[in-house]
């Protein structure tokens, strides 16, 4: 379905900040590179693996043109005045979930009352996911004890320091499951949808190089589709791109499968108005931002390929 544009005169170098270490979660990107989709668009893509928190700042300051990040962060960033815009909805479902060991019997939001819940930091996507879930699930302040636990979810859960932990759906739960631990989880997206991880750019690029955005998204889109259509081949490509996963192939395959679940949708890349509006409203209501963010300015579907 990817439209092939006329091959441009010269290849253009672009950088995209991934916000995490090389991982099977980036398989569509590796596929698009490997299959030459970017090259066909005249792009020479370079992947940077900086930490998420820095990336939006750099993007806003024009030090970067593209980054991967979640929609809630874009709302936060825009509220702080960063001219960043979300242009491609990659993770169709918001990937944060609340995980607990099956033995704890936590199955619904209701069950969390009186428990201790661990969250990495009191900021960031997982925290916002948690707040959204708590609000939608009717939890009041004081119903749960929230504990900042950094990136020690697995240790904190298994050692009983917390009853449940806010995680990424395709990370810690998968790890625990493949290690033989029975876990139960509540996916935030099932309770309240939020704009999830996708490709972000800045206003300068939008006004200056709209075509660049289009080409980049087109190539990526083809990668994502290819991945969904040929998961085995795609996984093999990821294995080549990230040779370090060799020793953890099984878990990584499981992670990959979880990702596929989150990615698969009828309309790849399309952001939904409702999700953004409700997110922006919720974040203002909840005090996560103190100025209203116009959802229309935070995202756009205009660079998606017209099929």
């Amino acid at each position, binding site marked *: 379905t990817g439209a092939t544009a006329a091959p441009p005169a010269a290849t253009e170098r672009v950088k995209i900040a991934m916000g995490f270490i090389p991982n099977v979660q980036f398989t569509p990107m590796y596929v698009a590179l490997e299959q030459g989709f970017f090259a066909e668009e005249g792009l020479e893509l370079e992947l940077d693996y900086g930490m998420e928190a820095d990336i939006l700042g750099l993007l*806003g*300051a024009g030090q970067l043109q593209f980054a991967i990040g979640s929609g809630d962060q874009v709302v936060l960033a825009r509220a702080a*005045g960063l001219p960043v815009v979300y242009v491609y909805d990659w993770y169709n479902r918001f990937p944060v979930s609340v995980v607990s060991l099956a033995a704890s019997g936590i199955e619904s939001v209701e069950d969390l009352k009186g428990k201790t819940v661990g969250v990495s930091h009191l900021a960031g996507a997982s925290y916002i996911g948690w707040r959204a879930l708590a609000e939608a699930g009717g939890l009041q302040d004081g119903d749960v004890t929230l504990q900042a636990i950094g990136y020690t979810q697995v240790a904190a859960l298994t050692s009983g320091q917390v009853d449940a932990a806010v995680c990424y759906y395709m990370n810690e739960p998968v790890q625990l499951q493949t290690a033989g631990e029975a876990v139960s989880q509540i996916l935030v997206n099932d309770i309240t949808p939020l704009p999830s991880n996708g490709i972000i750019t800045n206003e300068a690029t939008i006004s200056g190089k709209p075509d660049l955005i289009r080409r980049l998204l087109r190539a990526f889109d083809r990668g994502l589709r290819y991945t969904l259509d040929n998961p085995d081949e795609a996984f093999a490509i990821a294995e080549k791109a990230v040779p370090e996963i060799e020793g953890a192939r099984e878990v990584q395959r499981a992670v990959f499968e979880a990702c596929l679940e989150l990615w698969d949708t009828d309309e790849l890349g399309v952001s939904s108005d409702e999700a953004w509006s409700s997110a922006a409203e919720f974040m203002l209501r909840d005090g996560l931002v103190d100025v209203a963010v116009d959802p229309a300015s935070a995202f756009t579907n205009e660079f998606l390929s017209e099929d």
Partner: protein
Amino acid sequence: MGWSRNAKTASQVSASVVVAVGLVAAWEAVVRLGGYPTYIIPRPTEVAAKALQVVRNGTLWQHTLVTAQEVLLGLAIGVSLALVVGYLLSTSQWFERVLSPYIVAAQSVPTVALAPLLVIWFGFGMSSKVAVCAMVVFFPMMVSTLVGFSSVPEDLRDLMVVMRANRWQVLTKLQVPAALPVLLGGLRLAVTLAVVGAVVGEFVGADRGLGFLVNMGKGIFDTPLMFVALLALMLMAMALYVGVLWLEHKLLKWRY
């Protein structure tokens, strides 16, 4: 004499003020010339406004107190442990040669890698931060102890032997005073690293403290807040460092 000392102190203080003002000016200049937006580096005025706000509402004070506690406890534990271990290792060069590389090895493990174990052993309370802080402080202090104790003049060692001093007396009346300049040098490092250590400890997972505030400021794109927290950390480190300088001045006055 008294006058000249006061004059010297006064000149130091005023020079410090000049340097501080210069740094703020440089900061403003960097922001302007570099054209950095607020969310990369905020302007001094923005930071000052934010500082006023968090000082007024008590937030800053409350977080500072938490970190200060962690730092002081971590320092106390780390320094004492280092002195004890350093002393024990210094009693035998063989011992030192065999064991110290392993202590070094332990030092080179990044805290994030230790985080899960820290959580299991110390939980999420203050103790895990104190532990990180103590660990960070331990090593420079231990090395200083080793270096300091090995620099005790031989003739004074002989003197103590002739006077039939016991181990404790040799330690307190010879080794510690002789090693004091180096020990205090170690302490200069230790106090600075203690602040870093507490912050790193808070990064592992915390809901209070200045390290938390830095992370928070960063997480909610409130860079002025982050800078206020950073400035508070700097002031804490400077205060501790100046404290050690003062201690040096008191304890090493025989040198001047």
